[in-house]
């Protein structure tokens, strides 16, 4: 599966690169142009709400990609990735709250509305610095990264694997959810952070800002994709795959399983954090329910539907499952949970490699049908992936 996987992900040749580039350009350029250059009545016009919806899906795609890095490639199913996403979102939310300035309901330039409401007289220390976008951008990486580092170090060092790892990551996001529900935490309690006004000086209610956020999301997803690709095609990527398949054997070869997994977990958490940070300005709110364990499990199904252990799979999965969600919740909300539930069952039973695996299967069938088709060309994997 190794080389096939990577080929499906378009990793090994110039064609793959071109495909990635074209897809990115397609999403980053064509959609905004169709939105802004064409009149609303035009058949090819993409309405702004669709652009926003796409942006949201792309954030989910980035989140699924992040999960895939630890689950699909290192075999550790985190059921707490929603926590890293939400933390990134809260960090961005704090910046956006500071941008409101004195335009809040209470007109207090020093404190966000909810703090005024709680009779706080000064800004807590951990809110310092979030007036600066640069600081915020760094924190978007650092906050989820540090949590992942500490948590992952504790977990991987004591060799917590399999369902144990899943359970304690679930407990982690559950604990954080409870914590963020508390008003005393200083993150707006139940209501979370909302009523944002502008970002980097651009009003968030303007269509151009929304399109701009969308383009930023496409670019960040591409960057995350490339980062993930760099990792999985490196020798460390092969160590991760080896860990996934036979963890203890890797140790006997002298590789640090803890180190490899920790690295993947931290990078993954950072990607999830960036996804959350891009998500919040596009949906306009972040609240503790983003930490709920159910959300985190849903990420796993996006990844599984698309095909874990591939880089393209989770992106495809997140976008298609969420498109289905939007469709069902609009048409017949009560059917959605039946659908989602069945999806979990069907994918685990019949599609262990997801949609990407399905395509691969169809392709192979096709090839077998054609006589004398050359078998898998011996991939010179190691050589070219390092080029």
């Amino acid at each position, binding site marked *: *599966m190794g080389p096939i996987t990577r080929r499906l992900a378009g990793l090994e040749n110039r064609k793959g690169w071109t495909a990635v580039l074209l897809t990115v350009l397609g999403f980053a350029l064509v959609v905004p142009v169709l939105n802004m250059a064409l009149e609303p009545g035009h058949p090819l016009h993409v309405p702004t709400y669709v652009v926003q919806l796409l942006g949201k899906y792309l954030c989910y795609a980035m989140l699924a990609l992040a999960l895939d890095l630890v689950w699909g490639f290192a075999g550790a199913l985190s059921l707490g990735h929603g926590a890293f996403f939400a933390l990134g979102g809260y960090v961005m939310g704090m910046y956006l709250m500071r941008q409101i300035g004195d335009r809040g309901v209470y007109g207090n330039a020093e404190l966000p509305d909810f703090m005024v409401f709680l009779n706080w007289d000064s800004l807590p220390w951990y809110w310092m610095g979030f007036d600066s976008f640069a600081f915020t951008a760094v924190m978007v990486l650092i906050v989820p990264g540090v949590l992942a580092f500490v948590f992952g170090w504790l977990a991987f060092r004591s060799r917590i694997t399999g369902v144990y790892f899943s359970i304690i990551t679930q407990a982690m996001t559950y604990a954080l959810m409870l914590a963020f529900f508390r008003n005393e935490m200083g993150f707006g309690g139940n209501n979370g952070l909302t009523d944002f006004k502008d970002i980097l000086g651009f009003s968030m209610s303007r269509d151009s800002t929304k399109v701009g956020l969308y383009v930023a999301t496409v670019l960040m997803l591409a960057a995350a994709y490339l980062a993930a690709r760099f990792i999985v095609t490196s020798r460390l990527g092969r160590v991760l795959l080896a860990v996934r398949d036979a963890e203890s054997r890797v140790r006997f070869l002298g*590789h640090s399983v803890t*180190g490899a997994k920790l690295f993947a977990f931290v990078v993954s958490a950072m990607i999830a954090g960036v996804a959350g940070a891009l998500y919040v300005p596009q949906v306009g709110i972040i609240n503790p329910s983003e930490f709920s364990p159910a959300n985190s499990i849903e990420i796993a199904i996006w990844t599984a539907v698309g095909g874990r252990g591939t880089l393209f799979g989770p992106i495809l999965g997140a976008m298609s499952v969420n498109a289905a969600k939007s469709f069902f919740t609009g048409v017949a909300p009560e059917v959605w949970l039946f659908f989602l539930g069945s999806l979990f069952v069907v994918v685990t039973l019949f599609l262990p490699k997801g949609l990407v695996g399905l395509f691969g299967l169809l392709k192979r069938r096709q090839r077998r049908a054609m006589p004398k088709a050359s078998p898998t060309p011996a991939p010179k994997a190691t050589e070219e992936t390092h080029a």
Partner: protein
Amino acid sequence: MPENAVQQAPRHDVLAADSILYLDGVTVSFDGFKALNSLSFIVRPGEMRTIIGPNGAGKTTMMDVITGKTRPDEGTVLYDGNVDLTKHDEAAIANMGIGRKFQKPTVFENLTVFENLELALKGPRGTFAVLLARLMGEQRDRIDAVLGTIRLTDRAHTSAGALSHGQKQWLEIGMLFAQDPRFLMLDEPVAGMTDAETEQTAELLREIARDRSVLVVEHDMEFVRNLDCKVTVLHEGSVLAEGSLAKVQADERVIEVYLGR
């Protein structure tokens, strides 16, 4: 018992001075069952040693202890005369130059044969070093050489999962070559092999054992005879007899254990 400790410290030093592996009084128990019961023996540098014993004699547990997988409840395990192996984990011990081949061939089935060898290849093991590692010409040559030795050159880029049982065994032996250990432990290297494969494997092992210390755990008496080296018989977690195969086969107690009189 401070006096004891004072006495023991120099004793280990002296006895372990010329050894690659030194076990003294190693005990491991699982819920009251003693898998190893005060096991003691010494392997000299460059020596090849065979360990035999009936099922449950503690052979696998012994290897688990040496490779850091299982911590002994008590006892001393020294490598190279002075390194306390009970204080290190599997990866660190592997990096000290102790290689292990499992009874059931364990290769990474989703990686290619080439990639399996690449992971085993001696070299820096730090996470970032591995992330940024590039395959150098000489490393490539080394892998190619190993591929030739284990006769898998033409299968270098197939998934290891697609190999036959015997080929997996060879791949694993090849990984040991690539790892280039100083001390090697082989758990039933010819189990489940055809006669021809057994013959080829024995050849490979002789090759690999030339300049290394080797510990072989084996059931196949014919194979043991071929190896022609000192034999240690384990029974119920401790050493029952030690010496040449002929000598231990003549030992009353060994006969009793094996024939279950």
